[in-house]
């Protein structure tokens, strides 16, 4: 009790020192909370966009197909399949499933005028597509694929690239099931502008019936079954479960995270970077704390000697110094958490205009121009505990050094 009182009051004895050290830790905490909020906000919106527009919570297809797709190769038509009833039943009965649709993805060259551009054509079932995807909501011109008629929907950037409007003429050139070149021609029915750069440029939607005909494929062949779940946690657990169920059948069940390996890597890299900078801040703070305790020990030799004469054991004196360091850590991270809360709150409400910094669109990260932070209460708790722990750890060795001061030497009047 008294040790705590002494430690606490000692903090005010060298206010300047306490303040400077605390502020370093404050900086570390604010930085971390800001970065964490931004990272989580970025990842959240990014995955939300991917789930809504490209790969939903769960997708099921042939292993080989995913392999080629991930490599960016021509999508293999021979890896399409006809989903059997057992499979569809199993998916339908999975807990948390909100909707399911079948798609047929294939590679093609988009041709208009004298230019051409390689695209992925996503042939969709107009009846069920909306149960899983939201692309439709981003229509800026014309109409979406509604029936089984001809016509395509393209992304805004592709439209800009070819200077197309809805109603304009297009040609898609591709190889069919037997390897023969074939084309599909018609009008651009609609243009979508989605917050996902790849989708905006490189993806073309067409009705599935049209595509299977042109590709000389059996009518019910698909490349992927796309499933929308209630939430992302369920996606991860159920993907695993379904994966086990389909394991013997050459199918792969992927969650949205499996499908976005690059992003997951980017996320990990972002965190690594954040932790590295955090570590630097804390290193500076830690060294500061070590030196503060060494200084305090030198200043207070007599006091330490006196405490020993009163009968305090060394580990009780150690406690005073460690409590002081913990106090510095607590003050620093408390201020940091308060400031961090203000910053993060602001971020979640007003967002940060990312155009000012860099065009993330160019990096292929599917997000809008404005980035909103995520609020995560556990981050505050964790960083608080972590910083206090670092302060304590940094203080252990110098505290023992301080407490070992010889009482005889300490008390001697000089």
């Amino acid at each position, binding site marked *: 009790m008294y040790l705590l009182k002494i430690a606490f009051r*000692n903090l005010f004895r060298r206010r300047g020192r306490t303040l400077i050290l605390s502020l370093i830790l404050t900086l570390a905490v604010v930085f971390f909370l800001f970065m964490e909020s931004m990272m989580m906000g970025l990842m959240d919106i990014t995955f939300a966009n991917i789930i809504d527009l490209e790969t939903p919570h769960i997708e099921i297809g042939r292993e080989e197909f995913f392999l080629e797709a991930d490599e960016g190769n021509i999508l293999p038509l021979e890896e399409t399949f006809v989903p059997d009833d057992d499979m569809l039943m199993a998916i339908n009965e999975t807990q948390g499933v909100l909707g399911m649709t079948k798609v047929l993805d294939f590679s093609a060259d988009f041709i208009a005028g004298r230019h051409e551009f390689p695209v992925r054509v996503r042939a969709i079932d107009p009846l069920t597509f909306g149960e899983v995807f939201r692309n439709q909501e981003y229509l800026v011109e014309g109409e979406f694929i509604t029936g089984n008629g001809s016509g395509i929907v393209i992304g805004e950037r592709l439209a800009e690239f070819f200077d197309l409007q809805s109603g304009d003429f297009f040609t898609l050139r591709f190889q069919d099931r037997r390897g023969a070149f074939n084309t599909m021609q018609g009008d651009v029915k609609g243009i979508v502008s989605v917050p996902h750069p790849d989708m905006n440029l490189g993806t073309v939607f067409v009705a599935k019936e049209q595509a299977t005909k042109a590709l000389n494929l059996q009518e019910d062949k698909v490349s992927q079954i796309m499933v929308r779940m209630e939430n992302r946690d369920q996606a991860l657990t159920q993907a695993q479960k379904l994966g086990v169920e389909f394991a013997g059948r050459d199918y792969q069940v992927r969650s949205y995270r499996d499908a976005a390996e690059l992003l997951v890597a980017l996320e990990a890299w972002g965190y690594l970077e954040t932790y590295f900078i955090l570590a630097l801040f804390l290193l500076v703070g830690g060294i500061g704390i070590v030196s503060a305790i060494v200084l305090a020990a030198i200043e207070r030799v007599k006091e330490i000697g006196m405490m020993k*004469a009163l009968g305090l054991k060394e580990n009780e004196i150690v406690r005073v110094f460690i409590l002081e360091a913990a106090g510095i850590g607590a003050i620093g991270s408390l201020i940091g958490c308060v400031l961090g809360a203000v910053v993060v709150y602001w971020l979640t409400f007003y967002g940060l205009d990312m155009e000012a910094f860099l065009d993330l669109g160019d990096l292929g990260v599917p997000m809008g121009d404005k980035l909103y932070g995520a609020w995560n209460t556990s981050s505050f708790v964790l960083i608080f505990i972590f910083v206090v722990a670092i302060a304590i750890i940094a203080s252990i060795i110098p505290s023992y050094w301080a407490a070992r001061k010889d009482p005889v030497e300490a*008390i001697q*009047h000089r």
Partner: protein
Amino acid sequence: MSLLELEDVKKIYGQGEIKVFALRGVDLEIEEGEFTTIFGPSGSGKTTLLNLIGALDKPTSGRVQLNGSSIGEMNKNQLALLRRQNIGFIFQSFNLIPVLTAYENVEFALKIAEKGENRKAKEKVENILSRVGLGDMLHRRPNQLSGGQNQRVAVARALVKEPKLVLADEPTANLDSEASKEVLEIMVRMNKELNTTFIFSTHDPMVMEYARRLLELKDGMICREERRE
């Protein structure tokens, strides 16, 4: 058995070439309730002797026995326990804890000595502080008190746990004669009222008047002993 027994106690500082023979064989016995003064010029070994008696340091050779146990055989923690229960210290430079008030400095010493809650703690602390004449300055910090008042807090701090032995190393050296007198008179009174054993050192001949048993130290040896009533 005496409260304190020293037998041929030697203390040598430093190793190798430069050795300082601070004590060259001291024999001494002190009974409970005695009021002893160690007199000697600067460098004669007074502080060294008091440090050994106070279990702050161990002798190079010889035996220091306090309350029946020999300090030479104890480890750091045992020595700390011995000090906390049996010995009160008063130093030349007061050595109060600057961030604690007078009251808290005294209470702190009491809390260290008596682990656990003591309902009478407040009473005890206030009582001892008013006995040394600081009843109305309980909540001042050391820097808000004069030197004499600081030293009186130190006396109260040494006495509050009712130790067997109070050691005071030149308690008046930093005080003017008025304050010195006050502090010494308080020590004499406490010795009488509480029967606490006091040993204090000084090099000031004026202070010697208060001595009832006088030991004169010179070059690390007791060269004269005198008892007065």
